[in-house]
């Protein structure tokens, strides 16, 4: 085949494969999505008829009466995702961690000495919905005090929300912060 004929065949092949792979295939998966709308739309969490977030996304930091998620390079704004990309030898990382440690100590005077690692480091996505069970428990004293609740009640709530790693080794144990906070709001009212 000549170059022109090759290029012509290439263009035609690309167009017809675009119809298959770029139109029909995503459309078919979109159609499947209509059957499971909750999954297809990111599992929105609705409280009092209002969408207050996605069960999959960590949320921006807020007041002491709420459980906090992990630090985020983008403050969990949701418009652009990503991590800090600081290498371990980067002095900016050490400075950021020191600053977070100071702020956590100031906000949690009654918390244990040892701060869990996930409380000090930014996640990969900036939207990590989970914290370690240790970090959730670490926050119990602050949350209970801010809400005037008994610590044992709040601790029990945290323990109920620990999701264990499937098979014991598939990922890590975790607590979904938004789901915990929704339950926490119910606890106050009750």
């Amino acid at each position, binding site marked *: 085949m000549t170059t022109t004929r090759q290029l012509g065949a290439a263009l035609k*092949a690309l167009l017809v494969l675009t119809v298959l792979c770029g139109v029909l*295939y995503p459309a078919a998966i979109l159609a499947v999505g209509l059957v499971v709308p909750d999954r297809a739309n990111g599992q929105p*969490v609705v409280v009092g008829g209002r969408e207050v977030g996605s069960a*999959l996304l960590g949320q921006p930091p*807020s007041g002491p009466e709420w459980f906090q998620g992990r630090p985020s390079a983008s403050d969990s704004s949701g418009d652009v995702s990503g991590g800090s990309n600081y290498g*371990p030898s980067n002095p900016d990382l050490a400075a950021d961690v020191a600053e977070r440690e100071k702020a956590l100590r100031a906000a949690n005077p009654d918390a244990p000495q040892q701060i869990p690692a996930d409380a000090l480091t930014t996640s990969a*996505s900036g939207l990590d*919905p989970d914290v370690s069970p240790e970090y959730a428990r670490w926050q119990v004293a602050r949350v209970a005090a801010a809400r005037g609740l008994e610590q044992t009640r709040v601790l029990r709530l945290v323990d109920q929300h620990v999701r264990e790693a499937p098979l014991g080794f*598939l990922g890590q144990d975790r607590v979904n912060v938004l789901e915990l906070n929704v339950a926490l709001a119910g606890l106050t009212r009750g």
Partner: protein
Amino acid sequence: MTIALQTAAAVLLVGAVLAAVHVPLGTWMHRVFTDDSDWRVERAVYRVVGVDPRTEQRWTGYAGSVLAFAVASVALLFVLITVQGWLPWNLGRTMDWDTALNTAVSFTTNTNWQSYAGEAGTGHTVQMLGLTTQNFVSAATGLAVAVALLRGLARAHADRLGNFWVDLTRSTVRVLLPLAAVGAVLLLLGGVIQNLAAPHTIETLTGTQQVIQGGPVASQEAIKELGTNGGGFFNANSAHPFENPGPWTNLLEIVLILVIPFSLPYTYGLMVRDRRQGAVAAGVMGFLLVGSIALAAWAEAHAAAGPFGSMEGKEQRFGIVWSSVFAGATTGTSTGAVNSMHDSYSALGGGVPLVNMLLGELSPGGVGTGLYSYLVVVVLAVFIAGLMVGRTPELLGKTIGRTEITSAALVTLTMPALVLLGTGLSVVLPVSLDARLNDGPHGLSELMYAVASASNNNGSAFAGLSADQPYLNLLLAACMFVGRFVPIILVLRLAGSLAAQGKRPVTAGTMPTHTPLFTTLVVGTVLIVAGLTFFPSLALGPIAEALS
């Protein structure tokens, strides 16, 4: 469970899934590429393209078709991105011309390096029509070239290698589309989103604001992993909870990444009528992959004792082990998707993905590309062994003569030349030096990782590098194009030359290529070639950082 036990369990689990799947899938692919009949949808494609599916091509014609398809793909994708402002679902997103060109080359070459953020650069139409399509056809191209090389090994006294348009279409229709559809539905059920919604802002439970993104993610995620492409729908790639919501989807994505590269060795064994050859290939690939995963997990676990606990740039639901397994899978294949930020890995932990790429992407490598890169190393190993014992080097009854060894040697030289020259150029130019986020040895690793990623068509990044600038966009686009198509042309030349030969009978003097000794020789060739080429640069980057 300790990190070591968890890593072993993770590797065994992934290995068990692949062991169960590789025989049926490998057999299926063998049937796909040796079948004499066409499916109805395929006949429709051939009618539109205007080719006779029974006419086969010489290696030159096959290479011409591959190149023509690449040029058409780059051009069409560039135009599509440039005009996206006039398309529906563009969400007001745009790219500069240099970013658009980089992206067009990147997705056409199966690299999926992204100098744009998915949330800012691409609307839903470009994601589906442009990027999802290229995820399919660039993987299909790799598969086609690998199959052409297998035909070269299997045939005798032949001047034809098959028909590229047939191989491309069958790869897409019979292999990639069905598997991607199953993967996409499973991912969707696991929570990966699939809609056409625009981003909308909500008020959270605690009174803050957050943007919730939408998009046809599940359909793209499945082929992104299956086709070893790796371009994220979102900036955070497979770390984004909408792309990879939990441990099960993470496992599925790792399996999707590895399933075709680890099934192709079985296809290879069937094509050359000697399944032991395929077992050796899978063994070499598996050995290198498991080694790299173990090393990365060990390095990250070791770093976990440090002040920051090595969770910087990792997600709680994956943790150290499943981040390391993903990192090994994504850089051992030429995928480049990430579920953790490699830039934030410890010096050695981040060195592992870099070394995985510098080995030349054959542990197990990308769809198709992994197998042909492996076979090139086998040609080298056979040649070296032949020199050592003073016999004519032979592979599967084919003599490794001048054409064969020069093709293999040039393939082996292309990537290192690109990496070393590209990195060297970038460390003397202020424009790229200023793009680094981290200083010192880690900064060198950032630049070297970028050029290695582009030249090996991987696409993962030490993402601290601000790569969205004309110099890096154009340099990396050139590395991607040359790093992809020069080896492809040479591999097809090798295939053509092998096919033309007759088959020499096996005699007592033939060196077997299925023994443990030969397997060791192949692994040694991979490690020694990469070590001799890259040790000085690695010493200045990750090794210096680890020692300081």
